[in-house]
């Protein structure tokens, strides 16, 4: 595969500037509502504030890739003399935790940097964080060219993740038998 230049969009997080207001959660969920802004609900947000006020933990995390399986890493981290579970600041939605999952369907949520037409100057969470705990950065990186998967492939892949390839093939075989019959 050839190398291509790709624009990487990122949200830079400065935890020292976070004041814990959760406007990022609110506006993310409103932007992604359908129709846009017709409702809001932090539970559907693709960014979450992990917050323990009395321990002075203020950590905004935006949703990354879906992790099909539970990870093996369950390390404890000690920061500033306090112990944290690694799970606490992971960006993935995965089977073992309910973070970054659509509450109705259970499907994984992923930050899309507020892709829109016409494009926004910055993702909404960044626009609404006027204390600049969240800032937007673009940079160019050389990456391997990816083959883009079609819709059906994406769907099948997630089914395969969940049930295994063999079970899918068996099911397809059974379905086609019963259709014929």
């Amino acid at each position, binding site marked *: 595969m050839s190398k291509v230049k790709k624009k990487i969009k990122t949200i830079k997080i400065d935890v020292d500037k976070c*004041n814990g207001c959760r406007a990022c959660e609110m506006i993310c969920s*409103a932007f992604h509502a359908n129709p846009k802004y017709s409702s*809001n*609900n932090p539970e559907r947000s693709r960014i979450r504030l992990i917050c323990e006020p009395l321990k002075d933990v203020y950590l905004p995390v935006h949703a990354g890739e879906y992790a099909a399986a539970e990870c093996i890493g369950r390390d404890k981290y000690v920061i500033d003399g306090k112990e944290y579970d690694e799970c606490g600041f992971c960006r993935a939605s995965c089977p073992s935790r309910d973070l970054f999952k659509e*509450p109705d369907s259970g499907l994984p949520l992923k930050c899309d940097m507020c892709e829109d037409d016409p494009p926004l100057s910055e993702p909404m969470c960044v626009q*609404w964080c006027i204390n600049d705990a969240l800032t937007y950065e673009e940079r160019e990186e050389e990456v391997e060219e990816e083959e883009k998967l079609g819709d059906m492939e994406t769907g099948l892949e997630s089914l395969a993740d969940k049930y295994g390839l063999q079970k899918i093939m068996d099911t397809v075989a059974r379905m086609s038998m019963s259709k014929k019959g």
Partner: protein
Amino acid sequence: MRYAETGYNLEIDLTRGSIDRVETDPRLTELHLGGLGTNTKILWDRVPPETEPFSPDNLLIFATGLLCGTPAVGCNRTIVSTFSPQTLLMAYSMMGGFWAPELKHAGYDKVIIRGKSPNLVYLWINNDQVEIRDASHLQGKGAGETAELIRQELKETKAQVAAIGLAGENRVYMASIEQGKASASRLGIGAVMGDKGLKAIAVRGTKDINIARPAEFIGLCNEVLKYIEVREKNPVPGVMPILAGLGSPQEMKLVDEEWHTTNFMWGNSRQRRKDFWTKEIEEKWTGTQESVRKRLISCYNCPMKCGATISIPGISTYMMKCFSKLTYTMAAYSDLDFGFKIAGRATEYGVDAFSTPQVMAFALELYKDGILTDQDMAGMPSDNEGKFYWLLDRIVRREGIGDVLANGTYWAAQQIGKGADAYAHNNIKKHEQLPLKLGMLNPVYFLMYATGEKINITQIEGQFPQSPFPTLEERAAFVKDWIQVPDEKFKQYLLDWEPRGERSNPYYPTVEMSCEIVDWQETMHYIDDALGMCAGLSSFPLKPPYHIHNYPALISSATGIDMDEAGLWQTAKRNRTLLRAVNVRRGMRRADEKPPEDHWKKRFPQLEAKLLDEYYQFKGWDNQGIPTKESLQELDLAYVSEDLEQRGIIKK
């Protein structure tokens, strides 16, 4: 579908242990909006005037405002309403934080509590599942500690918890309801919660809040946010730093306390120390504040940072906001280090940081003058700061003299006798006021102090500067971008208002102008309190982002209710008049409406009487402050005038 609101209230009867989810009447939203407006309507309808605050029939209402939880920036207030054990009138304390938006996401606009539980309980609202749970293991626990224990017990770190401490459990008249960085402190609502046997309400909600016309609404919210950004970069010149920006006075951010420490009174609101603030003090206090303040923090969906996490070695970490850092300090003639330390303990006990230090200073003054005796104070340590800790501990436990002091200065003075009432000198309607004593009567402030139903000056003032700018140039500069005025004439009032001479206090602003200025300021507060909007972004600071010109479209696009400026003004007037009627029905009259005798050195009895006469008339009230039949009818409150007629309060 209901927009912005959920359309459902939770009705909890603690005597019977019943829980009901009740659909509300959308017509009431049109008439009263929500929050304080609909709370007042419920209290009028359902709590007869003879009901004692500590009766099972008294209601305790936790309400969200109409726009709470929507993208409207800073709209996060919980409005708690009930009848106050201290004033015996309606109390509506409010708190910011995260509780109200969470309740709305759980699917409710209000939690209405009646009855009394025989054992201490707490309420757990988790979307559609609502339980009354045993809280006997939480008895005597601090407010913050209780919240942590409940979150652990429920295994729900995201639950928002409003709780009382020991003071509320013991029905102390200064007891607050605490919720993280926020608290509903004034008028003893924590005591009513304790009387009902309710230790806390924990809530978790994961449902949507819907908006009627999303594109229009979000456009307005974005404008508000942009305005805040610009306004914060351009503080109002010529006023003290804490009043130059938005939010509550920025006590956590700023250290410069020259204005408070040299203008507000020390001790039992007695002494002004004009030369207190020195370079040395400034350095010391800066060191104190910077060493204990971990982070500046906000309420839900608000960029302002009015609160802070306070961490002092040896004391459990707590959250603080606004002026409480100085109330204990100044009552005790102590320093900021003491203020931060004792406030930590007081917050866990759950007491009002305005009234409580004053009650303690009042007790020490009585002791100094021999009215309280060695016997009353047996066991009190000899050092000054130790005395305050000792008194605080006695008050929240209602031990010994603490049992008397726990009722606030007014009732304590009645009980102590021997001339103690002269020491309870800083009250309005039996409620302790900010420790402020001034020279010349200000007619606008006279009216606000006398008639404000919240009985707290910060809940009626704002918008119009507290004092005139010295030069015409400054005044002209101020009015240039003063878009918030409901009418251009207010600009002229300010332009003409001078520090001395003919057009100065107390005769300028004139009586007529004073009525209009007070009415404007108060109206904005009543709108905020119905919407759940923080006064810090609206009715309290100068040149706020929300005002009478952008509110109607904001409300209309969020809720789908048709609303214009005149309609909104009328709605605020309806809510305000209904609240007056609630208190009038409980016996409040003109004689109760007076600022403390010593609030100003220079008083003008004739002018003051004229101000009240004219203001009452302006508001549609008679010369006793009772709303007239005509004004009630005009506000769709004919049922109120009928009730008042039947009781002989309004003459037929």
